[in-house]
């Protein structure tokens, strides 16, 4: 769509004429790739990166013109309608170099055993599929620290799928003419389970061999992150602008190594850990906005919230009026009326008829 068309579509007049539904609710009926404010994308290509138990694929997306572009290191929320017509949304790091408004970009996804969306994207997504997007978010971007305004050396320490946002950085640097002559040496250290699990292996190889002042160090298996090894590679790592991203245990070690150095920027990858469904009250219930955590009593979330002095909105207290709907961000809840359990993160639940099963976090 042309910029003029875009301006018309997001005009106040069109907004008033399409009230109360809004322009997008009409446009989507004609073509899912037309949008005034919402962002959607069409899958253009799905490339298998690794196979094995948790295969990884790179999905190339052509977004609507409403996409404002992304900076290296950001992520995007992707919503897909998995069979059964339930739209589920997850965050994925963008793996391609920085994009401009409306420009194509890629996400690289590992299919987790419990990841409804990741499994769908890796196994079932095909060119032509429409997905729902947010704008790019996240602050793991290519910026220098205030103390060292320019021409710094850059260091990346990544593990597993954590390589994805760092790859976006690296690709952006190289695309934009980075060639080492500016004396900004880049060191890229990555830890993977095995060579078979290594994402972007060929590309990293090419980068390593090229004359560009980027040094690539790939470590496998038991060769895990240690402070000593990092010191050998980059003796003054604490004074080097560093971007680190990987699984939690590795990130703990990295943080320890850097102490309180302001040069470390981290991005955290959360793998869902949910306990198997049990009928007894176990675990802890957290009300995130209020910031309190306490043992799960087995009562409904509404009752547990009230017992802690919170006053969530409610009406019927029997599951019919939807006044009490709140966002459960983590954990499993059981509908006390139907016994049905659900463990999707970021799911809206009626707290008056939902009892937590094990650990549970609610946005209250």
């Amino acid at each position, binding site marked *: 769509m042309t910029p003029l068309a875009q301006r018309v579509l997001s005009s106040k*007049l069109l907004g*008033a*004429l399409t*009230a*109360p*539904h809004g322009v997008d*609710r*009409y446009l*989507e*009926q004609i073509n899912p790739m037309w949008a005034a404010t919402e962002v959607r994308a069409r899958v253009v290509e799905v490339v298998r990166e690794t196979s094995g138990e948790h295969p990884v694929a790179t999905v190339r997306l052509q977004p609507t013109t409403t996409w404002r572009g992304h900076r290296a290191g950001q992520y995007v929320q992707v*919503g897909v*309608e998995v*069979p*059964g*017509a*339930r*739209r*589920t*949304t997850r965050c994925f790091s963008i793996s391609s170099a920085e994009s401009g408004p409306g420009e194509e970009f890629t996400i690289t996804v590992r299919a987790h055993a419990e990841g409804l969306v990741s499994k769908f994207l890796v196994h079932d997504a095909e060119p032509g599929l429409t997905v729902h997007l947010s704008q790019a978010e996240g602050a793991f971007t290519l910026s220098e620290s205030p103390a060292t305004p320019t021409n710094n050396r850059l260091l990346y320490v990544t593990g597993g799928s954590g390589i994805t946002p760092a790859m976006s950085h690296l690709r952006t640097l190289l695309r934009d003419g980075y060639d080492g002559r500016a004396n900004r040496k880049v060191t890229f250290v990555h830890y993977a389970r095995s060579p078979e699990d290594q994402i972007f292996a060929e590309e990293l190889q090419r980068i390593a061999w090229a004359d560009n002042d980027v040094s690539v160090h790939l470590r496998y298996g038991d060769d895990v992150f240690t402070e000593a090894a990092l010191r050998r590679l980059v003796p003054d790592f604490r004074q080097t602008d560093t971007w680190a991203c990987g699984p939690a245990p590795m990130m703990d070690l990295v943080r320890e190594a850097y102490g309180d150095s302001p040069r470390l920027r981290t991005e955290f990858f959360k793998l869902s850990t949910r306990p198997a469904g049990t009928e007894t009250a176990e675990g802890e219930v957290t009300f995130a906005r209020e910031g309190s955590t306490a043992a799960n009593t087995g009562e409904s979330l509404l009752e547990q919230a009230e017992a802690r002095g919170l006053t969530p909105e409610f*009406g*019927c207290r*029997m*599951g*019919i*009026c*939807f*006044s009490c*709907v709140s966002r459960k961000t983590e954990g499993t809840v059981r509908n006390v*009326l*139907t*016994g*049905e359990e659900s463990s999707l993160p970021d799911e*809206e639940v009626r707290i008056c008829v939902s009892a937590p099963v094990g650990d549970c976090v609610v946005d209250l």
Partner: protein
Amino acid sequence: MTTDTHTRMSDEQLEKFGEEMDAIRQRVIADLGEADATYIRGIVKKQRQLEVAGRALMYLPPAWPLAVASLSVSKILDNMEIGHNVMHGQYDWMGDPGLNSRMYEWDNVCPSSQWKYSHNYIHHTFTNVLGKDRDIGYGILRMDEDQKWHPYYLGNPVYAFLLMVFFEWGVAMHDLEVENLVAGKRSISENKALHAGIMKKVKTQALKDYLLFPALTGPLFPLTLAGNATANLVRNVWAFNIIFCGHFPAGVATFSEEECEDESRGHWYYRQLLGSANISGSKLLHLMSGNLSHQIEHHLFPDIPARRYPEIAEEVREICERYGIAYNTGPLHRQLGSVAKKICKMALPTRRSKATDPGTVVDHKLAA
């Protein structure tokens, strides 16, 4: 017409009855999926097409009646099969923001947030409980003989007619509880926030239908204005009639606050059943009424997608037969006639004693 058969249910029977209802609910919820999503998306598409067609046909003066018809049907679908049902959370499971109860706003002057409070919460929780369910007469009409008669109610048929014509406005004003203001049970300050919400919505609605779209048709301004107003009127009249057939035909029971204290789940279902009435008819009638022609099933399972009500109805009827519970249904003309009769009858003071009046069944305190 019902007699007092329903007073014969024992606590055990009520419990068994409640379990049977729960079982229906469970089965349908487990079965929700692709077909339901495809259905509602199809209806939304139809509604948008009819709306666009209606607006476009306004440019062709000879097609004016067609334009109005198209726009009317679009508004009816928007308010009933889509708006009403989506705002009940029937499609929340889809995770689609366009069909989510918290985000949906309908083509009606009543703001969705206020409607959800008075309808989903007050009306659906306290269905037909006198003094609590403000849908009994909407604070304007006398619809039950247990509402004390007053000379004001001589105007009952006139008020009903006006409410029908201005239904969307009546629904919007409903939340302000004007009757409680007059009675001194509510203070003006309680209405401030509500009032602001209503005014904002009224402005958007009026701007679109009574200014922008007419202006866009240039010299046809008056004709388009009249067309849009007519479409709103048609929607109002239709919605009023369908909704009044849901709770006010003869044979529908009302309840007192005491008998619903500490009510069991079984009794809740039972009250919803006795307090509602269906309209029998064609598929088209069900669609155009947002399946509120299955008011009974809707009150039993307000958050189940309405397209499931016809299939559920057969089971509910069978259960009612087994328990000897009246299932109030009839064709549109009969239910309408019955409602009209009640509106007129309630204009006058009640003379007969309650026990012999077949018009309204008042549930007796269940033998506990």
